C-alpha cells in the first residue's frame, strides 16, 4: 500500500541531485538564447513551373500507372501542316483536337493560336508578335493585367519553397497549372478533411440534444 522503496529511492535521489545541482546551474538559461541569423540577400531564384500542357496534349489512353498518356505537340505539328486559316470555333475541328471544349469568353482559336505551317506550334499576341508556348503568361496578361499584377506581387497563384530567398528557392505555379486556357474558370471541387471536432456538429444538429436550449 505504501510507495515502494524502489520507487522512492530514484525520486529522492533525483530530487536531491536537482536541488544540489540547482545552485550551480540556476543561471543556465539567464543568458539570452542565440537567435538564428537574420535573412540575407535574396540570392535564390524564383522559378515558374512549366506545366506539361504547354508542350503536349492528353490522349484518351491510360498508362500503367493510370495516368493519361500525353503526346508532345511536335509529334504531329512538326510533320503535318496545320494549314491555312484556323477554325473560328472548336465545333469546326474535324480531324485533330476533335471534341475540345472551349469556354473562354468569345475568343476564336486564332485569338491566341498562330496559324503556322509545320514546326513548333506558336501563339501570338494581339500585336501579331509570335510567342513560344513557354511564354504563355505574357499572352494571358494582355487581357488579365490586374491578375498578373497580383501574381507578381505574390498574391495570386500557389507556390512552394522558401519565403526567405536567402535560404532557398521558390517555385511559382504557372497560369496554366490551375486554369485550363480553353476552360479557364476554376472548377468546383469537393472539400477535404471535414472536421470531426466535438464542438463542431453541423448547425442544425448542434442543439439537437440540448435540453436547456
Amino acid at each position: 500500500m505504501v510507495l515502494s522503496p524502489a520507487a522512492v529511492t530514484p525520486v529522492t535521489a533525483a530530487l536531491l541531485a536537482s536541488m544540489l545541482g540547482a545552485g550551480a546551474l540556476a543561471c543556465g538559461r539567464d543568458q539570452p538564447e542565440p537567435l538564428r541569423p537574420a535573412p540575407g540577400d535574396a540570392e535564390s531564384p524564383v522559378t515558374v513551373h512549366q506545366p506539361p500542357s504547354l508542350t503536349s496534349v492528353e490522349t484518351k489512353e491510360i498508362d500503367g500507372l493510370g495516368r493519361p498518356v500525353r503526346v508532345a505537340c511536335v509529334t504531329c505539328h512538326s510533320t503535318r501542316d496545320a494549314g491555312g486559316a484556323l477554325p473560328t470555333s472548336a465545333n469546326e475541328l474535324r480531324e485533330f483536337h476533335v471534341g475540345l471544349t472551349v469556354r473562354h469568353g468569345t475568343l476564336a482559336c486564332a485569338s491566341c493560336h498562330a496559324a503556322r505551317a509545320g514546326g513548333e506550334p506558336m501563339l501570338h499576341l494581339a500585336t501579331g508578335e509570335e510567342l513560344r508556348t513557354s511564354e504563355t503568361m505574357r499572352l494571358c496578361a494582355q487581357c488579365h493585367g490586374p491578375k498578373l499584377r497580383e501574381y507578381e506581387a505574390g498574391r495570386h497563384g500557389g507556390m512552394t519553397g522558401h519565403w526567405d530567398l536567402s535560404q532557398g528557392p521558390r517555385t511559382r505555379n504557372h497560369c496554366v497549372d490551375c486554369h485550363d486556357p480553353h476552360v479557364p474558370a476554376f472548377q468546383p471541387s469537393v472539400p477535404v478533411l471535414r472536421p470531426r471536432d466535438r464542438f463542431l456538429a453541423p448547425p442544425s444538429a448542434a442543439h439537437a440534444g440540448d435540453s436547456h436550449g
Partner: protein
Amino acid sequence: MDKGRRRALKVLGGTLGAGAFAAALAPLRAWSKSLSVEQFLQKHYKELSPSELAATMRRHEREAKAKYGRDVHIEDVRPMEGVQFGYALNLSVCIGCRKCAEACHHENNHDRKTNNSYIRVLEMEQGTFDLEKGDATYDHPVPAPGKYYLPVQCQQCDNPPCVKVCPVQATWKERDGIVVVDYDWCIGCRYCEAACPYHARRFNWEAPEIPADELNTEQAYLSNRVRPQGVMEKCTFCLHRTRKGLLPACLEACPTGARVFGNLADPESEIRRVLANKRVFVLKEDLGTKPRFFYFFDT
C-alpha cells in the same frame, strides 16, 4: 484494562494512519506509472539550460521511437534575428477546399480520428460577417453559390488574451511574434481556449492517434512534436519550417494562392506590399488583440 484499551486505540490509530497515508499517496503511485522521474522534474522551457533541453528532446525522441518505431528528429528552432512574422489571406480567391487544413493536419501530427487541424474554414453567407454563423463542417462541392470562405487559425496576436490567462505561463509570445505552448508545462486547464476570441486553440482530449507511417518525423520542441493527452495546442505558423526560411505548410497547399506569408520587418516583402496596397482588416479588431493575421479582398 486501561492499558489494554490504550494499546487497542494505538493499534487502531496506527492502522488508520497508515491506511490514510497509503490512500493519500495512491494518486502518486498511479502517477509514477505514466510519469517518469525526468518528466516530473522537468523545468519550464525557458528555464532549461541548453544541455537539459537537449536531454529532454533526446528523451522525447526515445519515447517516440518506442511508440512509433520511427527515428524522430526533434529540435529547438529559435526565432530569426530581425524577423517578425505576418500572414495575410485573400478572401476573393479562397474557394473553401480545406487543402490548408489538410496540410496542417499532416504537417503538425494531428489526431487522425478527429481530423484535427489548426485551421477552421468557415463557410459564410455572402454579405454577412457573423463568425458565430459560419459553418466549419460543410460537405458539398465548393465554392457554393452565395457563400464565401473564411479560414481562421491562430492570429498570433500582439496582445494575446490566451497568454495573459495562463496560470502557469506555459504559453508565451516569442521574439518573432509566434505564440507557443510548452506542452510539457501545460496543465490543461483550458483557460487559454476560453480566452481566445478566434477559437484557435485546441485541447487534446485524448492522446493523438497517428499511424506510424504517416508521422512527420521532422519536429520541433515548440511546434509539431506529438502532443501528450490533456494539453493545449495551437498554430505556430509552422515555426519548424518558417524559422528555417520555408513557407508554412498551409500556404504551400493552397491551390489558389490566397495566402501571403512573410517578414513584416522587411519593407520589400510580399506581406508588407499587401499591407501597403490592399484594404486589409483583422478579425474582431474591437477587442484590441492586435492580430498578425490580415484578411483582404482583390482590387
